[in-house]
């Protein structure tokens, strides 16, 4: 076997696999969303957008992502700074911080359900402290914003770890000399963070934001666990159209909406946070 054909042989399984299970299904989704009986149509998108649930669903998803992702970035930066300062116990603390990374979103939803349900720990605490007389129904349809808050907390809890891991590995790449130089010129900790850490972390921040935003648009199990169908999100509605309403074409249209906002967000982050040429470490 010569080394001309060997790399292609090694790549073949992965390429064929991705073609069959990644490229082909997406062409199928596009086909389902845009055709009816073999001809081009926008009818499925009209059905989707014409349903009263579409716009609330759409905005719920967008607003959730718009709140969760920036908060996660700030929290992850704080956690990464803490980790960077640690000496003793660094590995233990890092392991604790990364625990949620390995947990399913469904598990995270169930965990926060234990806190927010009517007989849950939050109510127990509030009654115990005498703040309220009897348990409040946090996760009912009367208090949609409370479900929103619960979902935001659960998402912050679950998925901040991944942002932190990306930022910590990015911080490891920043040369120490940069900080030393900044210190020589009299920059305090905050100034060093703003003038050295943040600009140097740009590629990592970009990766983290892209990954997290796409994942945030796919939020599903956390919402179902905490709010059932009371708080509709795009992924949940896709599921709903596929199974409850049995309309695969509209489900495919929903899938394309998620895909479109994911790609749009990716392009925005690629553009806004691009690394200037020749500015890599």
């Amino acid at each position, binding site marked *: 076997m010569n080394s001309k054909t060997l790399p292609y042989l090694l790549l073949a399984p*992965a390429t064929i696999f991705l073609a069959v299970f990644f490229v082909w299904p997406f062409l199928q989704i596009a086909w389902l969303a845009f055709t009816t009986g073999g001809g081009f149509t926008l009818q499925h998108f009209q059905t989707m957008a014409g349903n009263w649930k579409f716009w609330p669903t759409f905005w719920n998803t967008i607003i959730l992502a718009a709140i969760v992702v920036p908060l996660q970035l700030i929290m992850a930066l704080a956690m990464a700074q803490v980790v960077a300062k640690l000496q003793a116990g660094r590995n233990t*603390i890092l392991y604790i911080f990364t*625990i949620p990374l390995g947990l399913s979103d*469904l598990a995270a939803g169930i965990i926060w359900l234990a806190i927010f349900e009517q007989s849950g720990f939050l109510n*127990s605490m509030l009654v115990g402290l005498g703040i309220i007389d009897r348990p409040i129904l946090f996760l009912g349809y009367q208090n949609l914003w409370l479900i929103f808050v619960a979902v935001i907390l659960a998402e912050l809890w679950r998925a901040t770890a991944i942002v932190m891991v990306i930022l910590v590995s990015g911080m490891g790449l920043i040369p120490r000399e940069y900080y030393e130089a900044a210190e020589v010129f009299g920059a305090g900790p905050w100034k060093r963070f703003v003038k050295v850490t943040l600009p140097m972390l740009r590629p990592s921040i970009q*990766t983290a934001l892209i990954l997290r935003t796409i994942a945030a648009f796919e939020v*599903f199990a956390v919402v179902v666990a905490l709010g*059932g169908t009371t708080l509709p999100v795009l992924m949940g509605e896709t*599921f709903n159209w596929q199974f409850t309403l049995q309309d695969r074409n509209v489900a*495919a249209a929903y899938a394309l909406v998620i895909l479109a906002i994911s790609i749009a967000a990716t392009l925005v982050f690629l553009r806004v946070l691009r690394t200037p040429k020749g500015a890599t470490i």
Partner: protein
Amino acid sequence: MTAAVATAAPDKPRAVSDIGRAGKFLFWISVVLLCAWVLVPIYLLAVNTLSSPAEVTAFPKTGVPSFDMGSIQFFLSFQGVLKALWNSVLVAVLTMALSIAIGAPAGYALSRFEFPGKATFRLLVLMTRAFPLPLLALPIAVMFIRIGLDDTPVGLALVHTTLAIPFSVLITFSIFSGIPLELEEAAWTLGCNRLQAFQKVVLPLVLPGITASAIFAFTISWNEVFAASVLTVQNRTLTAFLLQSLSVSPLHLRFAGGAALVVPALIFIFAVRKYMFAMWGIANR
């Protein structure tokens, strides 16, 4: 006199060290708070899991487990749970094997060869990142019905492998890149052919890293909800089973189920903790 010196001498440094001490105190407070933020919710789930069904629905809660196995027994004896657990393990093991078998050769090729089309392949792998992959399950469900793979662990494992492959390719790429080519070349000059050199020299060195990326693939599959719910009906995995029964099942079943999802994940993350940062550091580019 000596007393005066004793107070005067450390006077100046003390001002600085006081600020330092206050800062240190604040720093450790924030470390403790952040750890509590991560650990307390898991603890509360554990409390509910280790309480009897009656205690789970009781109010107010004490926050201390009674170590009653009632909830866990109920969960394990509930119709379909054991089968769902078994299916979850089966799918995750298949995903692990497939993603390494398919991903590792690609990672090796990317790290060792320069060839036309390399950039295109890397782009294909990176592109999967910008796509909401679980949605793939929708058209694949139809494809599987046609070829008889619907509602089977193998079918679901194929979809989960698609989720895991980008990671296994990038991770194995970084692991192979860490092994100097000279080691392999030395083996060749000593009479090994390419395969022997790989088996005897490279494989022992990369095995721990490969294991880590296999475990990572396992957790990806173990935790996945959407595709599992779309693709399985009778042969549900644990996540699909829990999702479907969320609205109808009693609270103690949900909490025990949540714990069943969490415990293996905790162990696996612990097992691969050393590789976590290497993986994501590389996954950055």
